[in-house]
């Protein structure tokens, strides 16, 4: 990276200081940085989504791009239909395109209800797809890893921790008596895990902070070697 008071370094340093100034209080410099950050990132994501999704996955695959350009792009579904006379599977992307276009009916007050269809499709397919994958990764894999012989302290801790954690997340019975005791142990396990995770993440955040300070003091100001 180029060091010193270059234009890009100076802008980056001012924006970094502007964002960090929020620790003091809300101030005009932070407001400027925040507005820039939100605005630029929103625009960036729009362009990024267009070039990473809409263009390659819809327009190129269907062959719409190829109709308007002479660039060397692989033939899409329309070209395959015209040249080879067969309906390519890529035409299925048309369904996604139509569903996406239906979202825009929200802009027409009388037809706004149609936009619920693609929403229902997305929520429904998501739930269905994740039902099996979550079950396999979160339930079956966890179960398999918990069935252990009680021949070491580590195994005993894993079995007790998992069983008590499951009891805590059992909602059909009030946490009283044995259930209450097991649930309490489950919460201890959770809190110990959270504590360890908290410490670990704080350390990684500190390294991010050090990285920004290093940029300001070393790369920009050149104060350290």
């Amino acid at each position, binding site marked *: 990276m180029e060091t010193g008071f270059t234009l890009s370094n100076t802008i980056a340093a001012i924006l970094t200081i502007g*964002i960090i100034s*929020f620790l003091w209080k*809300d101030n005009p410099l*932070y*407001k400027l940085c*925040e507005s820039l*950050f*939100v*605005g*630029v*990132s*929103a625009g*960036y*994501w729009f362009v990024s*989504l267009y070039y990473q999704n809409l263009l390659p996955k819809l327009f190129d695959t269907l062959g719409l791009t190829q109709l308007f350009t002479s660039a060397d792009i692989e033939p899409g579904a329309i070209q395959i239909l015209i040249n080879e006379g067969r309906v390519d599977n890529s035409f299925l992307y048309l369904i996604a395109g139509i569903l996406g276009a239906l*979202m825009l009916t*929200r802009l027409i007050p009388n037809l706004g209800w149609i*936009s*619920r269809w693609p*929403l229902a499709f*997305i*929520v429904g397919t*998501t*739930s269905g797809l994740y039902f*099996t994958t*979550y*079950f*396999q990764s979160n*339930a*079956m*894999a966890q*179960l*398999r*890893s*918990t*069935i*252990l*012989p*009680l*021949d070491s302290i580590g195994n005993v801790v894993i*079995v007790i921790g*998992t*069983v008590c954690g*499951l*009891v805590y*997340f*059992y*909602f*059909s*019975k*009030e*946490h009283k008596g044995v259930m209450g005791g097991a649930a309490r142990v489950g919460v201890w396990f*959770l*809190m110990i895990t*959270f*504590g360890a*995770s*908290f410490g670990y*993440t704080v350390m990684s*955040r500190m390294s991010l902070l050090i990285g920004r300070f290093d940029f300001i003091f070393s790369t920009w100001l050149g104060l350290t070697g």
Partner: protein
Amino acid sequence: MLNRTGGIVFTTLAIIACCVMSDFVYADNSAVPEDPSFGVPAPPSNVRVEDVPGDAGGAVRVRWNLSPDDVDRNTKFEGYQILRSTQIDNNFEIIGTSPPGQDLFTDNSTTDGVEYYYIVRADAGSMISESPPRGPVKSSQQWFNIGRLNSFIALLILSTAIILYINQAKRGKELYVRKIAGLDAVDEAVGRATEMGRKIFFIPGTQDMNNVQTIAGVTILGRVARLTAQYETPLDVPVSRSMVMVTAREVVKEAYLNIGRPDAYNDDMVHYLTDDQFGYAAGVDGLVVREEPATIFYMGAFYAESLILAETGNSVGAIQIAGTAMPAQLPFFVAACDYTLIGEELFAASAYLSKEPKLLGSLKGQDLGKLIILVAIAIGVILETAGWFDFSRLFTVQ
């Protein structure tokens, strides 16, 4: 002095160890002496290739009869090489190896629908011999994956239980769900904002509608919106995904309609900031310090922005109720919020709050699943500890 004594002892022990080891090496060599007459190994015979039955595709099974030279006494025999090509007569490449004594190889790198030919090569270092090419064979996925039969049965039981419970709930049967601590605070938090005449912020996470946590968060938003409609409390929902914005608007609008206050709803209650994770965090932080909401809900999937958001909310003195199933972010919400719905409590919360038969039935069905898992763990641990049966094998999903 000590060093010298130690050195002598160490040297003596090393010499003894060398003598013992050389005995072992000699004994090993004497057990399987090299066959000086061994040349080119005989090739494996009767090579069979087939699509792996009952799988998700992408795999071909290769079997063969062992080479007559694949015997314990032969130290030169190194095993088998499996070669693959899409043409019968050339372009064969090694795709894997099998040790001596093994007569099976599964090629997990095939493309469904492509015809492949296989050769199995007996490998004795510099000497090799090959079987004739076998094929063509095409891999394909079957309607039923035998390797996931256990998963299928478990999901069938779970789905049946959920459907039965949903039907019970629809028929009006009271399904008990224990109190969830953080949820009792929802009404209290909305009431506080109403008394103070300040806004309620609802942050549905930074992930899209294809994340179940976001779906759960938006469901809870429906309940919060009903309360804000009832008490005429201003509600602000900044979102980071366009799909979430559309869904959240639908949910909030419906809540205001159901309460009979469609006039109090406006689309600006749910507004888009940016898709960028930290751009969104910076935007929400700015809104929080300027608007000073009385209550903030964080319900959905969060990543590294969780503590930035929760700490800012804490600094303006807002009551904060969080819920997420992201294990790495839960510690931050636990530390910085007044109440936190941990993991599955987030999903249970939507059922508890809405009393919707479908959600309640799902929750009860899942509880039955947990009960079955607890019993399976108990049985499995006993069997494993006694060394009678590898019970965990039953839960392996391919």
